[in-house]
């Protein structure tokens, strides 16, 4: 039952919203819901193995006992007749059957085999290799869990495990009646019914969201095969850095794909930037490329928004944002929101300083945010707060032609790649130096680090956070948050 709860996204969002008072560390635990789901799954597998092995022995020994292979007492107990009043003990009724036959003729045995098979197929298709490369197999076979839970609830319906009724007064009453036996009641349903109902509500909610109308405000095809969609939906409220699931029935009826939103909550629409990375995204881009100007796109369903750690950015005095390639999208949303909050002088903005690192391999990907960053830069300068936001854009895939370009344009005021005043850096940043500098510039602050990118980068930054933090409350402390889909 615990396995169903971590995947109820809306429930988690609800909990996250209602424990806003409890502080960051409590809410951060909710981010690890998938890890918890996997741990519970491993436990289920282990317990299934133990349960199955135990029942294998059980079936064999009951059968042997029925056939009189063991001592006298067992044989006598096994041959207690069934006169319809709970007088028999051994569930194996005939003395010429085999355990295999037993399994396939009882509810418990049959459901047991079926659900164990379902479990095995679910587990083999959830291996990392299959999940990362062939997600559809993982997703569709995972729905076998419906069979698993159905079978689990009915597993005890045959009441095969028999015990003595009225065991409490045995040996205490003077009449000393002949013992009677009855099968135990199925109790699994008591445990699983709650989470099953919650999960059902979750799926119903997703279905309702699917039916709600979504209008296209703008469709832009950006260079480097990136698509920007600006959508509008009634009653849709988002926070900074949240993500939504998109479904396009014209492309695939059953697939929902997550995308981080790149617009700020202050805008009246919400936008997503989609990179061409697989079948679905490529088909979507193809379909939208062929649309005439100003036409509405194919029907799109939106489920969400679902929140993750980025909501906490404004709570920290100083924030370090590191995005790798397309992983910068939640931070784009944050920067836009910063821009709006700045303009309105929103008191909720506790942040005094933001360091933004964008690591990217090719220059094309920068273009779609060039205007955003240029606008921000101008805004900062006009208000005289040029050091509120420090950004370092790091091109990690440079070659000789870049070098030539740089040499020629060295003296220009603005960067040739992005047109910004901040020059583009080349190669990966040296994190030790960066953290050292941040520590020097902010000697007494609490610094929050947010990463959206590959595991390796996250691990490196986590280590640096630990390395440069100080237990002394008067000195700088680095907290690490990770976002990864």
């Amino acid at each position, binding site marked *: 039952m615990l396995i169903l709860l971590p995947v109820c996204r809306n429930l988690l969002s609800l909990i996250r919203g209602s424990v806003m008072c409890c502080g960051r560390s409590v809410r951060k635990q909710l981010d690890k819901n998938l890890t918890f789901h996997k741990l519970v799954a491993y436990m289920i597998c282990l317990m299934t193995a133990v349960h199955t092995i135990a029942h294998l022995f059980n*079936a064999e020994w009951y059968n042997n006992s029925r056939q009189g292979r063991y001592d006298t007492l067992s044989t006598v107990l096994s041959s207690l007749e069934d006169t319809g009043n709970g007088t028999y003990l051994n569930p194996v009724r005939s003395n010429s059957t085999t355990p295999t036959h037993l*399994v396939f003729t009882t509810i418990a045995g049959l459901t047991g085999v079926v659900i164990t098979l379902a479990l*095995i*197929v679910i587990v083999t298709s959830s291996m990392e290799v299959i999940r990362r490369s*062939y997600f559809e197999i993982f997703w569709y076979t995972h729905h076998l869990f419906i069979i698993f839970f159905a079978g689990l609830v009915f597993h005890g319906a045959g009441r095969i495990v028999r015990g003595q009724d009225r065991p409490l007064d045995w040996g205490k009453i003077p009449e000393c009646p002949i013992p009677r036996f009855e099968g135990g009641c199925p109790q699994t349903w008591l445990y699983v019914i709650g989470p099953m109902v919650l999960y059902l509500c979750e799926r119903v909610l997703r279905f309702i969201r699917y039916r709600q109308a979504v209008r296209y405000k703008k469709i832009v095809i950006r260079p480097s095969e990136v698509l920007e969609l600006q959508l509008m939906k009634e009653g849709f409220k988002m926070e900074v850095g949240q993500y939504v699931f998109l479904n396009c029935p014209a492309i695939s009826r059953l697939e929902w794909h997550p995308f981080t939103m790149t617009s700020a909550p202050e805008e009246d629409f919400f936008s997503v930037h989609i990179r061409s990375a697989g079948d679905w995204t490529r088909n979507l881009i193809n379909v939208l490329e062929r649309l005439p100007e100003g036409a509405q796109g194919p029907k799109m369903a939106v489920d969400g928004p679902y929140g993750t750690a980025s909501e906490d950015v404004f709570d920290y005095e100083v924030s370090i944002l590191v995005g790798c390639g397309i992983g910068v999208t939640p931070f784009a949303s944050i920067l836009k929101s910063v821009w709006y909050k700045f303009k309105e002088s929103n008191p909720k903005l506790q942040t005094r300083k933001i360091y933004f690192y964008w690591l990217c391999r090719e220059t094309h990907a920068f273009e779609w945010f060039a205007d955003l960053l240029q606008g921000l830069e101008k805004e900062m300068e006009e208000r005289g707060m040029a050091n509120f936001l420090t950004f370092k854009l790091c091109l990690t895939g440079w070659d000789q032609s870049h070098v030539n370009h740089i040499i020629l344009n060295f003296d220009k005021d603005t960067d040739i790649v992005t047109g910004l005043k901040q020059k583009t850096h080349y190669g990966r940043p040296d994190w030790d130096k960066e953290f050292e500098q941040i520590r020097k510039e902010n000697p007494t602050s609490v610094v929050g680090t947010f990463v959206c990118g590959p595991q390796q980068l996250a691990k490196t930054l986590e280590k640096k956070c630990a390395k440069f933090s100080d237990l002394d409350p008067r000195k700088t402390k680095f907290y690490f948050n990770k976002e990864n889909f």
Partner: protein
Amino acid sequence: MGKIEWAMWANEQALAAGLILLTGGIVGVAGQFRDWEFAAYGVAAGVFICFLEYPRGMRNKGTSVERTGQYCLTVCVKAFGPVTRNYYVRAGLHAALCVPGAFILPTVLGCVCLAIASIIYLVAAIRGEQWLPILPKKTEKRVEMGKSIAYPPQNPPPRPPPELRRKRAEDLEGAAYVNPIAVTANE
């Protein structure tokens, strides 16, 4: 559904089936169940299937991830040539191996899992997939692009001695060599 390589999933399923067959066999032998000989067969077949399925094949698209320590088994499996390369053979082999497991209870589960793996391998074979070994490539040393420009050099690069430097238009006599064509200054 995109370009799915069924063999990858079939491999996972078959490995799991092998382990389950092995466990069921151990239970049957240890408990000395009736007809425990089938359980002993389960142990042997389980071990064989685990060895056969442990090395992952190379993927057609994308990076192939090896299992830890699979290299030795890759070499063994590769040595059988077309027998292990062809997935029809594997499908048939698994179908045949699973049958004796159906006779006693502990190995029934392993039998059914293996049957499922056999079906998926059949699908893979129909789609024309093959098992190709993942062999370690000689990785060429990539030219390091330079870690950072944080510490630029303190001194200029060394210059050649005066005799070997390029002749300058202002100082034709002081040069170490004579040109066949006259040197003129840049305009």
